[in-house]
């Protein structure tokens, strides 16, 4: 065993479903667009009512717009498997209709699979999302980040590195991407990279306990006891009830005397 401090970033850390692209007016009527907006508003503000509304719309022929909306309603109730299934269904229906939104639905499905704790399925969905060029910019960056998280859980650290490198370019303002990259670099013993990336994460998010936890972990891996103690105690101070603080407290045991026999 080595000094295994859990990878905080790979634990289910769901992001709210990203804002879906509006239905393309040339492909859908203005009426569909209005119906879609109403459904998503409800799925976001009152997910249970949204679930009822989306189901009604789907029965009434709402197609993959309705399925995606239903997925959002499930996701906002943290019913990840149901959400992932609906997003995947929407993606398949959109593919049949040759609608480029399919890639976005696959990305949402992959994100929900990660939250559900199924990295193998997440990877498959995200492979589908990233296989087409239709997902671009920040959305492509976040999908790459999600696939990196899945690959870490599946033990493919090299694949995860490639995806994180891409995510750092396309989603450069997301501190979680830099945190994840720093954590992965520490695990693969690339400490200079770990230090550079955690510094960037800290610049983007100065009050995040999980960033402070990783600052402590990287210092410990570098043999810097003072830096480790500083990072871990700051993580505990920032969010005493968080998972990051619990891990920091466990790590702080290193500085306590062993119990008497």
């Amino acid at each position, binding site marked *: *065993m*080595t*000094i*295994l401090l859990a990878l905080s970033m790979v634990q289910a850390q769901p992001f709210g479903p990203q804002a879906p692209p509006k239905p393309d007016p040339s492909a859908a009527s203005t009426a569909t667009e209005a119906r879609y907006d109403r459904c998503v508003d409800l799925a976001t503000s009152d997910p249970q009512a949204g679930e009822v509304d989306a189901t009604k719309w789907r029965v009434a022929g709402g197609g993959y717009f309705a399925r995606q909306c239903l997925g959002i309603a499930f996701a906002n109730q943290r019913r990840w498997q149901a959400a992932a299934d609906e997003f995947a269904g929407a993606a398949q229906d959109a593919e049949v209709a040759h609608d480029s939104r399919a890639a976005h639905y696959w990305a949402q499905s992959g994100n929900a699979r990660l939250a559900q704790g199924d990295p193998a399925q997440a990877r498959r969905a995200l492979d589908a999302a990233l296989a087409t060029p239709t997902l671009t910019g920040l959305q492509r960056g976040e999908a790459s980040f999600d696939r990196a998280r899945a690959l870490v859980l599946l033990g493919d650290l090299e694949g995860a590195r490639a995806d994180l490198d891409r995510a750092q370019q396309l989603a450069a303002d997301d501190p979680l991407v830099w945190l994840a990259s720093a954590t992965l670099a520490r695990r693969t013993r690339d400490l200079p990279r770990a230090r550079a990336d955690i510094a960037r994460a800290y610049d983007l998010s100065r009050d995040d306990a999980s960033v402070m936890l990783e600052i402590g972990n990287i210092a*410990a*891996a*570098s*043999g*810097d*006891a*003072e830096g*480790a103690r500083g990072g871990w105690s700051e993580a505990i101070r920032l969010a005493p009830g968080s998972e990051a603080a619990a891990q920091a407290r466990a790590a702080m*045991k*290193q*500085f*306590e*005397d*062993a*119990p008497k*026999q």
Partner: protein
Amino acid sequence: MNDLPRPALAHHHTPGLWPTVIFLPGYASDMTGAKATAIESWARARGRSCLRFDYRGCGASEGVFEEQRFADWRDDVLAMIDMVAGPVVLVGSSMGGWLMLLAALARPERVAALVGIAAAPDFTDWGFSTDEKMTILSEGRLERPNPYGPSPTVYSRAFWTSGEAHRVMAGTIAIDVPVRLVHGMLDPDVPYLRSVRLAELLRSADVQTILVKDGDHRLSRDRDIALILRAIEELVL
């Protein structure tokens, strides 16, 4: 482990970054030796966790030396591992290098790496002549002149038979962690080929044997200790 009250073991724990480096002394030795104290100074200077201790019946620990069996000392090592939290690196000198193997086999989830210093696994077997073995068995004890101290070294039947029962060099040793074996080629007590053979038997692929051409059994000269500390440092980082 049994239910008998265990004797209190004298120990010295320096808190700091894991893994905790635990020093296992040699036969009839204690935690005040040059190697043990040098490792502790190194750990302190770098904010690292370290533990040195005396086996029961040795040094400042409770117990009568001649009553101790080899397996009791193995249990003492396990008690020390269980006392601290987190991963440990065992540094075993001479007989301590035998005990570290038994401890790594018993606590595979805790032991992160091993450093042997003139490691002497199975020395109850190869370290005694047939006449000496007969003396131990028939008279219950054997005295040998001690080159490292004023009083002779005593081997009891309880210790010797327990050691014979815990030999490990018969085949592959199922240890998979990084191992460094440091041995002096002028060691008059434990032939350095013992470390070479041990490296062959360890299942781990990450095993390095470091031979010091003019090194003796104690490997306590400044440059020997510097070499040992470098080996430890490489494994803890």
